[in-house]
């Protein structure tokens, strides 16, 4: 009798383990450390690229929608690779694409956009690179997905087909 109860207990135990692991398989395992996630976005003020007007971060990220801040430069080779993904993302109405032009000559940057197309809803300039530092960027390109004034996701390096699909998934 005692053995039977024990056996039933063990079977139930293993079935639970099985179930939990089965569930665990379906979870995404892309791990981003909690500390860098959902951080409040830094406050900054900068010049709008095509005009000479200043704008603050509060005005930019005020709406209840997703923003993708993309740090780029015309001299950055991997930026060319990710450009196609950005153009694709710019079609999506749930997402506002904001470019942050990093340590770049304005002439070169304009030429870059004429050549490859302009995916951005909005471009800010970061001539001396200080804004990028405040965002904690490692280099160009780098992209931050922002929702409700929080960084939801951070892509270091160019957007790849994998991270592109993830972005799409999050936005949905």
């Amino acid at each position, binding site marked *: 009798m005692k053995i039977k109860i024990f056996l039933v207990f063990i*079977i139930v135990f*293993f079935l639970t383990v099985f179930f*939990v*692991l*089965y569930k*665990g*398989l379906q*979870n995404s*395992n892309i791990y981003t450390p909690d500390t860098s996630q959902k951080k409040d976005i830094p406050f900054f003020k900068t010049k709008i690229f095509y005009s000479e007007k200043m704008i603050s971060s509060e005005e930019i990220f005020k709406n209840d929608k997703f923003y993708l801040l993309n740090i780029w430069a015309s001299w950055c080779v991997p930026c060319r690779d990710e450009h196609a993904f950005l153009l694709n993302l710019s079609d999506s109405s749930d997402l506002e694409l904001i470019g942050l032009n990093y340590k770049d000559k304005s002439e070169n940057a304009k030429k870059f956009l004429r050549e490859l197309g302009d995916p951005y809803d909005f471009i800010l300039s970061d001539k001396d690179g200080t804004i990028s530092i405040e965002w904690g960027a490692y280099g160009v390109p780098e992209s931050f997905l922002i929702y409700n004034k929080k960084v939801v996701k951070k892509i270091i390096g160019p957007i790849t087909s994998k991270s592109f699909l993830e972005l799409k998934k999050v936005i949905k």
Partner: protein
Amino acid sequence: MASLIGFYSLIFGLFSSSVIIFLSILNFRNTNSFDKKILTFTSLQLFFVIVSFLGLIFSFINSDFSNETVYNHSHTTKPIFYKISGTWGNHEGSLLLWLLVLTLFIFVFLIKSKEQSKQYRILTLLFQQVIIIGFFIFLIKTSNPFNYIFPVPKEGLGLNPILQDPALAIHPPILYLGYVGSSIIFSSTLAATSLNYISKKWAAHIKIWVLISWIFLTLGILLGSIWAYYELGWGGFWFWDPVENVSLMPWLALTTLLHCILILEKKLLFTSWVIILSISTFTLSMCGTFLVRSGILNSVHTFANDPERGLYILIFLFCLIFLSLFIFFFLHKSQDNKDYNFFWLSKETSILINNWFMMYFLSVVLIGTMYPIFLEVITTEKISVGPPFYNKLIIPFLIPFLFAMAIGPKLKWIKSNLQDKMNLIILLIISFLLSLLIIKNTNLNFLLNTILVTSGFYLFFITLRDFFIKGFNKLSQNLAHFGFSLFILSILLNNIFSSEIITNLKIGEKFQKDNIEINFEGVKKKSINNYDTIIGKFKIIDFNGSEEVLEPELRIYNQPNIVTSEADIKTDLFTDKFMTMNLVQNEDYFNIRYQVKPFMIWIWLSVLLISLGGLLSLLNRRNEN
């Protein structure tokens, strides 16, 4: 072409399995002698798997990119050595290696077990074939290493550079010999349990397999650690990473099993322990495969995140678990020697204590590894369990464990000989004074550390003394225990005395801290086959008189385009000087990390001593037979 042969060999191998099972069942019913045809087909199956494996190796050597596995993991500019090791440096190839070792071991088992009963041999073969079929189907269905791609790509994607390393090239095969060796223990234990075959004779015969897998598992883990030490560049050798843990868990179970088997062989005790431990060793190995291959964990070992694969292994694993549970609960009749009187100060007691300690350590590691997964599923909260958890739970228990290990093998004498008692106490006092001396000069938690180091030294002295008293008698046990004490001591002293300097330096700059000055003298650039390298030159001046030049490297691999940092390590008998440098993007300085790590080499040597103990024991058995 080679791929095609490889693939069809796999199919034939699977087909042989069904023939073997059919023949075995026929043979099992008739009480005649062992059917020779079974052996023929087992060797045939081994042959097919070898051909298949060679087929994959050839595809890698010839850089045949029409093979998807080769395309994904190789490149024409890679040195030939890494082309070959690339064969098992990926999910598909490594599973083929699993299969190879599985079939090899059952073949050797059949040859080496002629003096055992026919029924037992056949049943073991049957259980092993269940596992083999499981892996065949897994390989062919979800991870075929011979997938054909068209059009044929011109160039492959390359092997991850951090895997291009000699230690890591042989790490998987050695580790697999350990993991898969436990499958033989598993099958034969299930067979012996169902046939009521567990006896002293059986224990003597299965002990060889336990020793073999234990030695390989130990060496495999050691190689992985050494690799992590110099390649990952963090200067540690064990990170309590889930993937390291899944190799440690079978090791703990196997070590416990090894001790139990010894008692079973001599006294016919602990049969339930032996059965449960045999089952858990193999299921833990499988569980490790599940955790790293399903992508449920993320680490260097996660080759591909494919839930379908994970699901397959998961179901397979639980089938095996329930099969073993069924056999254990319904067919197991306790064979334990009922007349045996447990004397509370006997060797058996000390083994039992050892068992419970090991089970405790095992559960800590198991919980630390699995809990984050459970928590995420239940609450969607992500946590990571790191070294502090393990340190807090394991270190306090290490102290009584080490004392028990020191005194355990001596329990018999304690009741008999007064002289020995005195010696034991004197050694204890010496160890205590020695550790007092060491800890006094540091600013660590005094009480805990002194006792910890005392227990380490105590085990060290006692096992050292045994070499003189017992000589060649029980040399293997002494050697392994001595190695273990050395291991613990080296880790403790290493932790206490390690020092580290992290700084940013430009070329030509100096940095000074305490007694050490680091001079960044310059960089050299070189171009080698499949990577470019930047070698930094650093002169380290110690004001106590020594001077050393260290040359850490940054390698930029061409395919895939990854930068790896190669540590430069100067090793001598007592300390390792360890240096890495990293490029900081868009800046003209390098991030420098300089570490002085005492007794590193003793950690590796002591583990070698431990496995040497196992090897000696294995050779001893050979001689006896």
